[in-house]
């Protein structure tokens, strides 16, 4: 299937760019099967996902449509050596980000030292002054993070953005792995891949480690916005995998600054909440007095140390795209180390000289809104129309703090099954590894979500916009 496979000009290819040894492993693994065989296996995978309801929801009518997140069974392979470097870099980054959030809601040493401009932090819509002086149980705030990485034309991994609030996608990592093992058993065995199925137990352990009471007395819940949320499958999946209750805000109430669950037998105390709701819908007392959503008083319970919230409220200040350019400074300031992971050069429209440059080069840059996610609110300069660029020029001038711009980084490609052409072709990918932080320090899941832009020529990997996923095989040895 790979005999005609050619890389895209300018892009690093995950297979062709790999070491000879790794490449030989992957090629041997995929050799032998015909395209027909593979098409059948691929169809089986899709049917399994649909029947099991491994879906995300798109609400275009009253009933909503559930779609599977398309999966390409051809894996993305990362060697043990490459992984070791990534793992260290991710741990370093999360430790620095933890220290930053802690500092920002306490003494603000980094602002006083001038390593990060105060206006960038204090002017962020994600900075919540009300939380200043509060320290969460066990001092952990970024319990679960998803750090988005891309690989540039030279094969260098670069952090594209940090997700420190409610990063999603880990359920697909685990479900994709089940498919790999079921449908590509021989290749999987030959490759010697590190397992990912310990994630739910690790997550439960990390959550238990920050409980205000003894681990064996701890009640953990997963808080979901409800079945109409697009990521509901994942919320349900994680609750199931950890063996804890999945709850909605209306199931919870606060009494005497303690959090309780409504059960058929009356109130039951809750100690740790893995919440998959935004800060804004956490507690109407604090965030949105007009809202009926959320749990009234939960922030009081949190402030008193009676309940742990994962992730902690207020983390958004550290994954704000306007703060992102300063993460290398945070690493130097808090850890006294040089960053192990590269970033993407970023222009901040709040700075006059950057703004001038951005406005003059809109056609070459990717412009992002600092507080949007999911690929929305972006201008892809190289493929944009003159009107779109004019629109962004107006918006940037009206509120420069909300915009940053980056050169378009060429994404690496991976051999990907093209169902229409029944062939394998290069498609662009990104990568989201997951890091759990607990009282014991950060732990990186050996694997992660590889998202792939299934459309030919596309750079957009988001599930809502034609993206799919791949299993990511982190090898035990170097091939």
């Amino acid at each position, binding site marked *: 299937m790979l005999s005609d496979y050619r890389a895209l000009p300018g892009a690093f290819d995950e297979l062709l760019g790999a070491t000879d040894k790794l490449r030989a492993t992957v090629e041997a693994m995929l050799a032998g099967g015909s395209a027909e065989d593979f098409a059948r296996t691929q169809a089986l995978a899709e049917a399994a996902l649909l029947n099991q309801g491994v879906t995300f929801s798109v609400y275009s009518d009253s009933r909503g449509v559930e779609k599977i997140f398309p999966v390409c069974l051809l894996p993305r392979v990362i060697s043990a050596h490459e992984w070791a470097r990534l793992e260290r870099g991710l741990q370093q980054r999360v430790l620095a980000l933890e220290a930053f959030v802690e500092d920002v809601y306490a003494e603000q040493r980094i602002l006083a030292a001038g390593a990060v401009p105060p206006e960038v932090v204090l002017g962020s819509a994600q900075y919540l002054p009300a939380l200043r002086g509060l320290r969460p149980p066990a001092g952990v705030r970024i319990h679960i993070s998803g750090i988005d990485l891309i690989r540039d034309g030279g094969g260098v991994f670069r952090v594209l953005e940090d997700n420190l609030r409610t990063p999603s996608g880990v359920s697909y990592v685990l479900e994709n792995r089940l498919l790999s093992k079921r449908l590509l058993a021989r290749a999987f065995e030959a490759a010697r891949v590190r397992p990912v199925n310990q994630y739910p137990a690790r997550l439960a352990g990390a959550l238990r480690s920050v409980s205000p009471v003894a681990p064996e007395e701890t009640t953990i819940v997963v808080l979901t916005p409800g079945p109409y949320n697009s990521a509901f499958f994942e919320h349900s999946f994680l609750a199931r995998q950890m063996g804890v209750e999945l*709850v909605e805000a209306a199931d919870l109430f606060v009494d005497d600054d303690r959090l309780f669950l409504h059960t058929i037998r009356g109130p039951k105390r809750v100690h740790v909440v893995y919440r998959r709701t935004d800060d804004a819908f956490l507690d109407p007392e604090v965030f949105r007095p007009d809202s009926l959503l959320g749990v009234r008083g939960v922030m009081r319970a949190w402030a008193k140390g009676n309940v742990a919230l994962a992730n902690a409220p207020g983390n958004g200040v550290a994954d704000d795209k306007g703060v992102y350019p300063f993460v290398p400074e945070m690493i130097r300031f808090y850890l006294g180390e040089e960053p192990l992971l590269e970033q993407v050069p970023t222009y901040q429209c709040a700075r006059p000289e950057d703004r001038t440059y951005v406005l003059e080069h809109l056609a070459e840059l990717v412009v992002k809104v600092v507080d949007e996610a999911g690929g929305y609110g972006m201008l892809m300069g190289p493929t944009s129309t003159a009107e779109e660029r004019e629109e962004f020029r107006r918006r940037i001038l009206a509120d420069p703090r909300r915009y940053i711009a980056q050169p378009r980084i060429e994404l690496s490609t991976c051999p990907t099954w093209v169902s229409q052409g029944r062939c394998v072709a290069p498609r662009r990918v990104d990568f989201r590894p997951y890091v759990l932080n607990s009282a014991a320090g950060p732990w990186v899941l050996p694997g992660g979500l590889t998202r792939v832009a299934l459309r030919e020529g596309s750079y957009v990997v988001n599930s809502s916009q034609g993206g799919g996923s791949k299993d990511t095989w982190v090898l035990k040895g170097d091939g």
Partner: protein
Amino acid sequence: MISRVADHCFWMGRYLERAESTSRVLRVTSSLVLDAILPPAQVWTSALAVCGEDEPFLALHGSAATADGLRVTEFLTWDTTVPSSLVNSVYAARENARSIREVVSLEAWEAINELHLWLSDGGGRREWEARPDAFYRQVRTGTQLILGAVEHTMLHDNAFDFIVLGVLLERVGQTARILDVHHHALMQLPPDLVREETLWLSLLRACAGFEPFMKRKAGRVSPGEVATFLMLEPRFPRSLVFCLREADQRLASIRTPGDQSFPPLRCQARLAALERFLASRKVEDEDLHALLTHVVEETAAICGELHQELFEAPQRARPAPAERPWAEA
């Protein structure tokens, strides 16, 4: 167990049973029409009445359409604006299950999801158009598979109790309505032995009771015997008394009598009273319609109490230990 989760379990059970009952009624009715002993309009009106959809159908399609079996079955099977249509019941059962995927076993979930997908992806529709009988049979076996997976792969904890409770209380209403509607239809006609026998046998089939009835009664079919069987037979799993007794058992497993951590349930007392009342009746002495109406209304009231006491999650303050134990009602 979380009150909201209990609520979803209960309704998942009710909608599954409703789908199964509707598929059985439509299959039996389609077959009864072929016997041509009654005008089709009368037969289909009965089917609409059993589903509680006779008035909406008349309002929408007019009385002439009740003679058109295709119109009626389309309406009761596929119309998404009809609350108890088959496709809506399965959709609602599946939405309830999806909301509590963490308590439903994987095998039960897959079974329910596959039935829903078959009904919504065109496969079910094609089968319905080509082979309606096979279609209704497949919906029935689909729901049976789901409940079988629920019983044999789920923890038998309170979530299970609530699903089964939903099935049983829905079934009480279904059996009572099917019996009432048929009884009413027969009373409108001059006596005719052959016709009556055909109708009573068809009624038994609509409740999956044909063979069990024959076993108990050795082939002696009379209106009183059939009504007695469907209402009072303690060993037939779709009889009113059987369902009420089992529902009582489920409630006793949710709150065992004397449980100190939990106030007694009004719905449980009311359910037990209905069961005792019904078991003491002699069908031949009763106004059947009045009795069945009482059963349907009382069952609805029990479901209302259940909802208030267990699902609505009032912030029940836990009383001080001195105020316990609960006085048993």
